[in-house]
């Protein structure tokens, strides 16, 4: 097990290097001139431009820039934005907001998705099963920004049930955006649970459990569900990693000051350091969550062995 984790961590290194370089290249290899963009309409004095370019290593070749960036990154330095603010500071301020939003989303997915999936699975082909099927397909087909928009107009603007935008104290203001953010995965969880349960109910060991004279509830809850939840739990874990970066659209619509909106604004204003820093963090989360999930698999399914 320890060796497996060590090997996985080693494999993570080239992936992290590759991903960060990919981002770096996309952000810095572009022909535009961020300094000029920064200055806006008033051209800066040549001396100032040169100094700025030097400070942000913009004169070096891409690989050298990347090397310098990595060096700083290893010391925990995510760089500074053009206003001189450290990116780590921005992250520290915005990350909790996005994490809260993602947790609310996963909470919805787990609660509603699981219940709907289980009920549909045990009554395969019933009215409820078909209802879940139709609803989930419909939810999946409506793009998140449309759903967010419509939810905002109806539930917040018209019915006044939720704040229209921004965040307040406590979790209440996170409920609506969290639900929107999690809606797609919620549908996936419901269907995954349903399919997995239906498949497991057909397994021989479920037949054995019944032949042992166990009550139907025990057969379902202990023998069938335990196995069916393995893929669902791993999906939820991986999704938590993916939702952090998926928050771009939702945070934009609901005007939530999280990392998603930060990164989008930074892209538009050409704040390379912020973009690279935040997106690197997203990728780091994604990879770490996937690693944790892989390891958790062993705890859930004794058949999985790590060499």
């Amino acid at each position: 097990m320890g060796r497996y984790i060590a090997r996985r961590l080693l494999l993570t290194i080239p992936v992290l290097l590759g991903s960060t370089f990919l981002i770096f290249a996309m952000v810095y290899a572009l022909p535009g001139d961020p300094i000029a963009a920064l200055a806006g309409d008033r051209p800066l004095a040549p001396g100032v431009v040169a100094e700025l370019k030097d400070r942000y290593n913009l004169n070096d070749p891409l690989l050298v820039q990347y090397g310098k960036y990595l060096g700083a990154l290893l010391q925990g330095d995510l760089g500074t934005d053009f206003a001189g603010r450290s990116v780590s500071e921005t992250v520290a301020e915005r990350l909790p907001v996005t994490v809260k939003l993602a947790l609310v989303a996963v909470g919805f997915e787990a609660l509603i998705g699981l219940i709907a999936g289980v009920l549909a699975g045990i009554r395969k082909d019933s009215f409820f099963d078909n209802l879940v099927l139709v609803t989930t397909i419909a939810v999946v087909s409506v793009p998140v920004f449309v759903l967010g928009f419509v939810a905002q107009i109806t539930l917040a603007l018209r019915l006044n049930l939720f704040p229209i935008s921004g965040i307040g104290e406590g979790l209440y203001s996170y409920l609506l955006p969290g639900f929107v953010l999690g809606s797609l995965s919620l549908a996936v969880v419901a269907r995954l649970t349903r399919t997995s349960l239906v498949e497991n109910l057909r397994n021989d060991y479920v037949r054995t459990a019944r032949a042992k004279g166990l009550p139907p509830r025990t057969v379902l809850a202990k023998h069938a569900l335990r196995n069916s939840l393995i893929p669902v739990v791993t999906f939820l874990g991986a999704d938590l990693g993916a939702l952090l970066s998926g928050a771009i659209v939702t945070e934009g619509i609901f005007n939530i000051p999280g990392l998603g909106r930060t990164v989008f604004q930074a892209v538009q204003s050409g704040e390379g350091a912020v973009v690279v820093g935040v997106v690197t963090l997203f990728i780091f989360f994604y990879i770490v969550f996937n690693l944790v999930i892989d390891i958790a698999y062993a705890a859930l399914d004794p058949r999985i062995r790590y060499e």
Partner: protein
Amino acid sequence: MSSPPNVSSGQGQDGSLLRSSDAPDPTQSRLPVTTDDTSTGGDRQASLWSDAWRQLRRNPIFIVASMLLLVLAVMAAFPQLFTNTDPRSCDLANSRGGPGTNGAWFGYDLQGCDYYANVIYGARVSMTIGVFVVGSSLFIGVVLGALAGFYGGWFDSLMSRITDIFFGLPLILGAILLLNAFTGERGTFQVGLALIAFGWMTILRLLRSSVISVKAADYVQAARALGANDWRIITTHILPNAIAPVLVYATILIGGVIAAEATLSFLGIGLQLPAISWGLQINGARNFVRTSPYLLLIPSAFLSATVLCFIMLGDALRDALDPKLR
């Protein structure tokens, strides 16, 4: 005890028939027990696809989805068939005239352009991008996935790492970064490229793993024993049997790509005006949701319905191609 004589006449070498209890699996009882397990991939693939087709024809979801998609495809190719109005001939006097104004079914947008004509013309971008992106992703994913799965080794490891790297960036985020790097015009082609760049990985993975599982099958080993070369084994024996899950995914992916294009255009980082796209229309409706909700709802409905059709089509395909779920 003497060696166990088997009663039934044609047990396969792999014991697969030994294993089958006499639970009345309908496919089992229909098949003669003497089915030769080493029959060529061609036979089984023919029966898989013809079974699937028989199943599809009877599936109302498949019929409805494909009819609607046919209409959308015609709409994309020949929008003139649906409207005589030029979507770009606008009259500011009609600005935000609601549905029914001057006989315009869907009313007018902010610039006073006929909204019905705009929504009809919007299908073109969505369908083009969907087909272009998924077609290219299929090409990349199938070629590389088949090679990685069939040959394994360093190429496989390399491909695994590269897909891992691209997987770190979700579709929308990656496309935002890449599109932002494109200077100059951002048209259908550029948006398509950005979506291909971050959309091909799952196809490669799916195909790779299904190639690996098919590769071990008896009929592939048999073909190999008969001296078929790699190219022939891959194209005639492995791919036809490994492609089913990829096709299901690709169908659904078309819907996903269409939604992604709309999202990018909505965010202002995809297509630019004066292009006609549902995402741009929804973006344009942002500030008028109170007074003119139809500006938001109509393109949203078209967009969602299109995505829905592809998802339903993919679902129907999956049901037909995966006998396990029947």
